[in-house]
């Protein structure tokens, strides 16, 4: 599961060693603890569960509250703030990332449930040398944004749209990008950027 191993402190090493065993046990142990705990104490669940998230090829061992979404884990725990929080209810697409190569909404994915899957964010699509992904370059060339807030989600969704084979025409792009809202209404330029990036991605 863990591809690249970040440097480990003794403490995280000890957590890590037991991760696969602990997850279900902690969850069940917390259940009984919580029943006994007074309502103002969230410590039993906050102390949380262990999850190893693989993001852009790097493993991250986290102790998380079960409520943590992939979006919050990325932004608040791992420090990857490129993925944006818009509506936080799966309606706007700002939080779009790829899980195992498919575009999904990180705000509606529990971090615990993402364990064992490969997450790719906007920080992980440029080449190692720093050359932008053709879709990133196309968004710049065609001015596919104004405020830019939901652009990372647009770009992640657009890359998947091309890979799925759903970028065959303007109409198809509009349909298959409908899960990404742009409050600045940069839609025509976004469509132009995707049309331009498509042949470059395919070559």
């Amino acid at each position, binding site marked *: 599961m863990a591809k690249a191993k970040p440097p480990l402190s003794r403490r995280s090493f000890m957590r890590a060693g037991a991760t696969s065993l602990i997850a279900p046990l902690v969850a069940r142990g917390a259940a009984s603890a919580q029943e006994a705990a007074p309502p103002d104490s969230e410590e039993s*669940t906050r102390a949380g569960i262990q999850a190893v998230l693989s993001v852009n090829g790097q493993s991250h061992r986290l102790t998380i*509250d079960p409520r943590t979404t992939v979006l919050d884990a990325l932004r608040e725990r791992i420090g990857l703030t490129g993925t944006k929080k818009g509506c936080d209810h*799966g309606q706007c697409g700002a939080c779009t990332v790829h899980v195992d190569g498919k*575009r999904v909404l990180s705000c*509606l*994915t529990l971090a615990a449930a993402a364990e064992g899957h490969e997450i790719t964010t906007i920080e992980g699509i440029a080449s190692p040398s720093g050359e932008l992904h053709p879709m990133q370059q196309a968004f710049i060339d065609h001015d596919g944004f104004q405020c830019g807030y939901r652009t990372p989600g647009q770009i992640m969704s657009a890359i998947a749209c091309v890979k799925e084979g759903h970028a065959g025409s303007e109409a198809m792009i509009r349909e*298959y990008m409908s899960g990404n809202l742009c409050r600045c209404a940069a839609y025509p330029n976004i469509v132009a950027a995707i049309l331009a990036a498509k042949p470059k991605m395919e070559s």
Partner: protein
Amino acid sequence: MQPFNYSRDLNDISTDRGMRFLAGGTTLLDLMKLEVETPKLVIDINRNEKLRRIDIGDDAVRFGALVTMAEAADHPEISRRYPIIAQSLALAASAQIRNMATLAGNLLQRTRCMYFRDISYEACNKRKPGSGCSALHGVNRIHAVLGTNDNCIATYPGDFAQAMIALDASVETQGVEGRREIPISELHRPLADRPDLETVLEPGEMIEVIKVPHADFRRSLYLKIRDRASYEFAIASAAVALDLTEGSVRDARIALGGVAYRPWRARDAEDVLRGKPLNEDQTQRAAEVAFAAARPQRHNAFKVELGKQTLIRALIEARDMEV
């Protein structure tokens, strides 16, 4: 979101009403953030790989409960043999949600009634049995006109379930008491006095397979009318499947969405069509019968006429399909 415990251990499944299954999460997580759902224990069933298969057999197509909307919609055999299924899925939600949401979860999605989704409204019989219905005298443009009473006027929001009941599909479930098969037309309870009890599933009972019996349904489609062109729930929809011989209707299946309390099979309208030629007069008659019991509210009376026209257009388009 209220605290909960997370488990992947299927041995933790119990009949406790505070337990929820986590599949795609697109409904559950949303409602947990709204605190409409406050489970104590969430059981993540996503590691159950045997529920991810699509088996196309001689007598039936069997979809594992965890097959995603996108996987089923993009399956070439499904779209060729059952356009009604592929369309009902492809016209729903967004590409991201279709990659996440599962077929079983789709069947069980909850209403979009804003009074149900917003816990600051005290009255909602679906959330709090006996508290009343805020929508009855509130803003009720998106609400249902079929199958309602004064306890609840919420609309069943899905699309796929209409395709499923039109095709006489069923679900195979695993419950604490054992396995059983339930026709999807009986999965969602008719509205009586407990709108909070939406389905006949028992606590701890999980859908494992969705089974569509084989029949020639190449002449079928799902027509969805929305307030915007994409990524929107139906304001009216019709799932129709026709079996025509020499211009006459041998069999017709009709299910209506966006207008009813639960996935709505219009059997009386089917009876009108059977054995007759399919012309505009006949489709008009079927539509009148389908909406004869409509119960419009202050802001949604338009759905009666829109629903009829949606059905008429769906029937004519299905008749004219080249199969």
